[in-house]
């Protein structure tokens, strides 16, 4: 019965695109969370939504316009972040408001509600060959850039000032990074949907941080959680005819709850053991 899922070519496409996304989302997500910029993901996904609506309106493939809109506004956020240095979150909410406003106008102009619906909540049946042609090269590009600049991104996330002194090109890496996030978000909208994409960027990282014992482990575990959530979510979505964005994110949330519970139980057990051994010492 499980095999039936893989028999359809649209599901094969969904799994292929989905798994690439499941790797790149937490990969950029780790740095995003540690730089305390989680909300940028949310903002950029709303901008990308405006891009999708624009693409539908003028007849360009929506992922391209989503890419264009989100990369441009990512650069805008970086600029505003410098102008409002002490109110970084202000720049994010300004762009968020602008993005959602434009998206709303473009959607109501477009009159294509079912199309936009699939970009809001994700869709498995609509992943096209065109999507695969975009996602594979850009996915490889993102993995390549993060691997190449791994130490630089790591140091910048830990402490920008010290990274600068160590010769890390901090300004360039920050710019590059925000472009990587906007690409990741635009690519992920097809499967996860614009409303939930930022969750796949942050949730697996949050789960991983509960158990990881090093930075490398944080990355590794977050990718494992994300890939598991995506595949379980996609299969559930197929059999119960639910929007994949919802099922994927709920599976991620379940992983987070399980991890926190596991940690809680382990700590309780350890404390208990400690109590007894102390007593023994006391005797």
């Amino acid at each position: 019965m499980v095999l039936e899922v893989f028999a359809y070519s649209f599901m094969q496409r969904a799994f292929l695109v989905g798994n690439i996304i499941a790797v790149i989302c937490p990969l950029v997500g780790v740095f995003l969370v540690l730089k305390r910029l989680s909300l940028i993901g949310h903002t950029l996904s709303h901008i990308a939504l405006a891009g999708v609506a624009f693409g539908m309106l003028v007849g360009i493939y929506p992922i391209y316009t989503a890419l264009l809109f989100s990369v441009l506004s990512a650069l805008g956020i970086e600029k505003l972040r410098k102008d409002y240095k002490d109110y970084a979150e202000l720049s994010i909410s300004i762009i968020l408001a602008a993005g959602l406003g434009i998206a709303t106008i473009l959607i109501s102009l477009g009159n294509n509600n079912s199309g936009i619906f699939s970009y809001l909540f994700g869709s498995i049946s609509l992943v096209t060959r065109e999507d695969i042609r975009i996602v594979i090269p850009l996915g490889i590009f993102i993995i390549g850039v993060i691997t190449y600049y791994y130490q630089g991104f790591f140091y910048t996330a830990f402490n920008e000032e010290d990274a600068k002194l160590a010769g890390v090109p901090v300004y360039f890496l920050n710019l590059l990074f925000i472009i990587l996030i906007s690409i990741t978000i635009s690519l992920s909208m097809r499967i996860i949907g614009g409303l939930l994409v930022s969750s796949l960027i942050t949730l697996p990282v949050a789960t991983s941080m509960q158990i990881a014992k090093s930075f490398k482990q944080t990355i590794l575990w977050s990718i494992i959680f994300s890939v598991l959530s995506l595949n379980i979510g996609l299969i559930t979505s197929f059999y119960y005819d639910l929007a994949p964005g919802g099922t994927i994110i709920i599976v991620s949330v379940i992983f987070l709850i399980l991890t926190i519970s596991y940690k809680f139980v382990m700590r309780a057990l350890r404390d208990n053991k400690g109590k007894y051994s102390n007593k023994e010492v006391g005797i």
Partner: protein
Amino acid sequence: MEEEVIGVKNLSFKYEDKIILDNIDLKINEGDFVAFVGPNGSGKSTLLKLLVGSLKSRAGEVKILGKPIKGFKDWKRIGYVSQNVRSFNESFPATVGEIVGANLYSRMGFFKFLTKGLHKKVDEALELVDMIDYKDRLIGDLSGGQQQRVFIARTLVNEVEIIFLDEPLVGVDAKVQDSFYELLASLNRRLGLTIVMISHDINMISNKADKIVCFADKKIYTHRAEEFDYLDYLNVIKGNNSMVLPKHEHKGVN
């Protein structure tokens, strides 16, 4: 003759219209252990920042390791532990080894990964500060004093010749401070490291440093440690908390 590693001539600096340093000279030799003392706002951190190039002055000359600071590129040979080095995110999921290793960035090859040789450098640096057993521990799990040692190791990993420290022990208890100063003194002796630090700690000034630079009235005065009357210094501090540097004759200027 001892080799000069830091040379400052006729240096002045002002923030907007406020003059902080006025036409100062300073000479630090290889292997010196120098303490900067003086009241808050007297220009200690400013001079330190001028020496590591994060501030630039229009008037005067700064030479580091024999080269003018303007074109100085050899930052690998300089270590800087800033005042807010410990104000990082305590739950950052990185190990001591990962953090020390990141400072080798400019020594990494095309792909920015740690090779075997670089891993060895990390181990050596951690051994120097007695923290090798903590290599795989998360940085946030360490105490303040241990973190400070890790940040020293992070500068040592690049085989530095001068380490600048800007009040590195704020918020660390006295016992840990002592062992930290002992560590610095031993690095100074064993490796011939030049150490320049800002400190308010009289104990360290009297025992460990061999040159004391006093900051007062936009000027600086260099003393040899043995010439510095720290009892006088102590008495005045006890009498007046607002004044960290007491009045004293600036004798023994070299």
